């Protein structure tokens, strides 16, 4: 066996490299024009004398990632140095958008978790009486303010517990309770409105002045007033006919307005 093919192919590749490094004028016979033309004998496995025959014909026998044997074949990139990643410290700092949406999760941009003292700075939640006069748009906005505040409190609580900053759980819970009171109030008001609407629909079904079919005018008020006010008007009309001026009592007029409403 030839010496080059006797050793491991990777070692053979090393020999080839050294031979190609030798200048031409010193040893013209050693230089090779095509370095891989003799690849076939290089790939031939060396066999020891009297070794048992191994006929599994496995081409990749002896290659092991664990033992770092490398490939049996020489690749075009075999001698290229592997690129090394830059250390984390040398990388340029990441620029964070000051208007990034995730800042909304923080009660405090410096410490992330709000201190108990800051958490205590809150009033009471909105009461149902105060919310009754608000429009749906206002209530909806307020709901989302509450949702975000709860997220902020939860983020602060995670940070406080994970970072083992210290006390402050009860203060955060107190704040959360007030927010939940507001949310409960919003739902209360909306439920009230829904019930009122349901009742109104039920009344409208029997009301001849209201048309729920969706065609034409939904509300056509009657020409004459009903009840006492109507009777008074009739009386007034009669009195006018008779030529006597009757001053209507103010109470009756108020009652008539109430009936109209």
């Amino acid at each position, binding site marked *: 066996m030839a010496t080059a093919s006797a050793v491991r192919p990777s070692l053979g590749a090393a020999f080839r490299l050294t031979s190609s490094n030798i200048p031409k004028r010193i040893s013209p016979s050693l230089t090779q024009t095509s370095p891989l033309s003799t690849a076939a004998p290089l790939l031939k496995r060396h066999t020891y004398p009297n070794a048992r025959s191994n006929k599994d014909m496995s081409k990749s026998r002896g290659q092991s990632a664990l033992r770092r044997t490398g490939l049996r074949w020489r690749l075009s990139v075999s001698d290229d140095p592997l690129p090394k990643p830059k250390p*984390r410290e040398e990388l340029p*700092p*990441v*620029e*964070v*958008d000051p208007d*990034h*949406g*995730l800042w*909304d*999760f*923080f009660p405090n*941009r*410096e*410490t*992330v*978790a709000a*201190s*108990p*003292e800051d958490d205590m700075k809150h009033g009471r939640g909105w009461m149902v009486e105060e919310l009754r006069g608000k429009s749906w748009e206002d209530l*909806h906005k307020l*709901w*989302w303010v509450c*949702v*975000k505040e*709860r*997220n902020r409190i*939860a*983020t602060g*609580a*995670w*940070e*406080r517990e*994970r*970072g*083992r*900053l*210290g*006390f*402050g759980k009860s203060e955060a819970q107190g704040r959360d309770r007030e927010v939940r009171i507001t*949310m409960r109030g*919003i*739902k209360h008001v*909306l439920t009230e409105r829904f019930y009122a609407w349901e009742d109104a629909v039920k009344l409208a079904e029997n009301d001849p002045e209201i048309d729920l079919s969706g065609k034409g005018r939904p509300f056509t008020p009657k020409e004459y007033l009903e009840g006492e006010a109507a009777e008074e008007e009739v009386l007034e009309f009669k009195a006018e006919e008779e030529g006597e001026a009757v001053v209507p009592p103010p109470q009756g007029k108020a009652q008539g307005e109430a009936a109209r409403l």
Partner: protein
Amino acid sequence: MSSMKQLPRIAEPVQRWKRFGEKQLFLPNHVVALLRPKPKQSPNLATFAVPLQFNKLDLRDYLQHAYGVETTAIRSFINQPKPERKNKNGPWYRPRAQKMMIAELVKPFVWPEPVKDEEDLKQWDHEMFKKLQKERREQEKKQKNPKKVPLRTKLAVPDDVRSVSEQARELLRQAKGLKVEKKEGKGEKKASPDK
């Protein structure tokens, strides 16, 4: 032109992540917390603790519409705690699991440094908190194996006991007429063979 028309039309790429659900939710009542990333986590990843019923699409929608945060992908996993029991002989139960989601952000986001300064930590009464934690841990240890009573020599000598013993030793030395050698930071154990 006719040949051009016969060519199959290339479909425009569907922007999958631009599509959102059609069901409108007006009053969602979920609590989503943003968690501090692990030290080597990329700034393009943000971790959230979400309710168990949340799915990836929900979080994507939530972040986009409530916070204006664009995401490219979302990963999710559930942290299942170990079974616990309240008392030593109480029934075993499984604490509620916590769902976590990691969102890949379009805009990177870096957290502020964790609070390490002693002065800043005073806001949370950190010193007292640490002491209490340590005591609680010791109590738990005692409760776990009540039969194991530590030896007196293994226990830390209280400060008042130590000072009394030092005073006594000094008196003994003076009585013997020896020079008083002050040894700082020595406990009972080392000093006792001197007697």
